[in-house]
């Protein structure tokens, strides 16, 4: 596989995990969180700090990051999920801003904006040593996590749990009448979403061998919404299309025209105008 597209594919898959995770929260339970950069950053730093200070190895580092994301999402969700729409958005945004500011300040821990780079140890699995510095190994490693995340999240959305999510999204009051406590289910969606976002962040940090406080920034809270809306919200696959589209612009179009964001902005408007269900909805609707 040619090197350039392979590196691009690796980054794309990492972001796809993020996009799908965000869709669980946004697409399936209609919670428009602006705080997901918290989980992304927690995931990235979770694995990097585990490698640097705990010498934990990559797999354990990923697990630590995943659990950390889950815990932070639970704590944040307990506060935020009960709030109604606009207030939910703003409070999650506030959390994101607080984490960003603190991470910029606490350079002893996070390296601030300059960030922390890390040397990756080999992975020992069943007597086999794998090095992520080998490009094909790196690629398959990410592919495995991407597919696993997709399958897991697909399972969740098609399971009874997922059906409850959707019913809450469609009509929260009705769901409550049927005996489902919307708060618990929305919180569950939020926590799952946060955990998988942390996984995405840790995979991303492994790909870059680097984490930075910048990952807590507002940009990383807004971009998943862009991915979901232009790709097709509530479908898991749609957001991945959104990721691919944005990467296409950032990777290829930017070399052709520095101000590619103008084209991308126009594309966003066109897609939103033609199909509320994003690109996927448009393609399927045909």
């Amino acid at each position, binding site marked *: 596989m040619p090197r350039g597209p392979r590196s691009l594919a690796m980054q794309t898959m990492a972001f796809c995990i993020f996009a799908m995770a965000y869709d669980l929260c*946004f697409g399936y339970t209609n919670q*428009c969180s602006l705080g997901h950069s918290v989980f992304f950053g927690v995931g990235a730093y979770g694995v990097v700090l585990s490698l640097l200070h705990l010498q934990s190895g990559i797999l354990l580092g990923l697990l630590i990051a995943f659990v950390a994301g889950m815990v932070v999402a639970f704590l944040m969700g307990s*506060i935020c999920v009960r*709030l*109604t*729409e*606009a*207030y*939910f*958005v*703003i*409070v999650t*945004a*506030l*959390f994101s*801003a*607080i984490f960003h*500011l*603190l991470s*910029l*300040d606490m350079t002893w821990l996070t390296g601030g904006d300059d960030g922390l780079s890390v040397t990756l140890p080999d992975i020992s699995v069943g007597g086999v040593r794998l090095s992520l510095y080998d490009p094909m190994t790196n690629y398959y490693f990410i592919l495995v996590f991407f597919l696993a995340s997709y399958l897991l999240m697909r399972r969740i959305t098609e399971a009874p749990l997922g059906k409850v999510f959707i019913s809450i999204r469609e009509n929260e009051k009705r769901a409550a009448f049927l005996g489902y406590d919307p708060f618990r289910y929305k919180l569950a969606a939020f926590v799952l979403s946060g955990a998988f976002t942390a996984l995405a962040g840790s995979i991303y940090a492994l790909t870059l061998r680097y984490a930075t406080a910048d990952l807590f920034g*507002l940009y990383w809270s*807004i971009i998943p*919404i*862009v991915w979901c*809306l*232009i790709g097709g919200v509530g479908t898991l696959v749609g957001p991945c299309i959104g990721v691919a589209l944005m990467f296409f612009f950032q990777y290829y179009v930017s070399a052709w025209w520095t*101000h590619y*964001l*103008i084209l*991308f*902005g*126009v*594309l*966003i*408007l066109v897609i*939103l*105008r033609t199909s*509320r269900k994003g690109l996927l909805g448009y393609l399927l609707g045909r």
Partner: protein
Amino acid sequence: MASEVASALLFYLVNGLIWGLIIALIALGLSFIFGVMGIVNMAHGDLYMLGAVFAYWIFSALGNFWLSLLIVPVAIGLLAAPTERLILRPFEGHPAVTMIATAGLSFILQQLVLMTYGGVPKELPMPLQGSFDFLGVAYPLYRLFIAALSLVIIASVWLFLHRTDYGILVRASMQDKEIASAMGINVNTVLVFTFVLGCVLAAVGGVLAAPVTQVFYLMGNDVILLCFIVVIIGGLGSLGGTLVAALVLGGVEGLLAYFLSPTGARAAVFAFMVGVLILRPQGLFGTQRG
């Protein structure tokens, strides 16, 4: 010793309040756009930036700063009106969609300015020279002026909404579009008008702030989050709430900056706001529940 601390705190407080007034002006614009039309305007900071950039261009071309206060509202109005009617109208009522649509507009605006104005931050000289002795510091007169002007503008907007016929129509549409329409109010015109008003307020804030903050194509990113926070904390639908929230934000952060590190002060203020919203989810003066 105590008086030294007291005078330092007073200085920080007043300074913070003055900044709060500028934020209030910009956030007021957002309160209209977000509160009335349900548009989560991610490009609101860029309107602030456009006001500053236009002020720079007008000053460079005509040598006069004050003309910006006349020209910018017209220019922004000419840009904003068709944008609302043609681009954003179909999205209104769907907050998340408006968020991303305006994010797209934000990308476009920022890059257009980068292409024309360039990437170098530039200075606009203060149109009002002179200072007065405020607690041992030569406090620039211009800062007091923009605080005063912001108050005047905010008061004018309030008067307009509460004392003029058209203003009452706007408020009626704010309360309930369907009933207003049923009563014969041309809601479409009101929507365009409201949007233009919101954009113009942000741009005027940019014009006033330009000589103090300097003009850079990404300067909108500094204010956007603050504006949303202020609007929500103040309470959706309450313009007075926006003003109070902005003043509280400016004042508290100003005071905290004396004790804490700069980022610490900002983080503490945000944490405080999280507390406010948990205890009072409709904001300080909110009339609507989310």
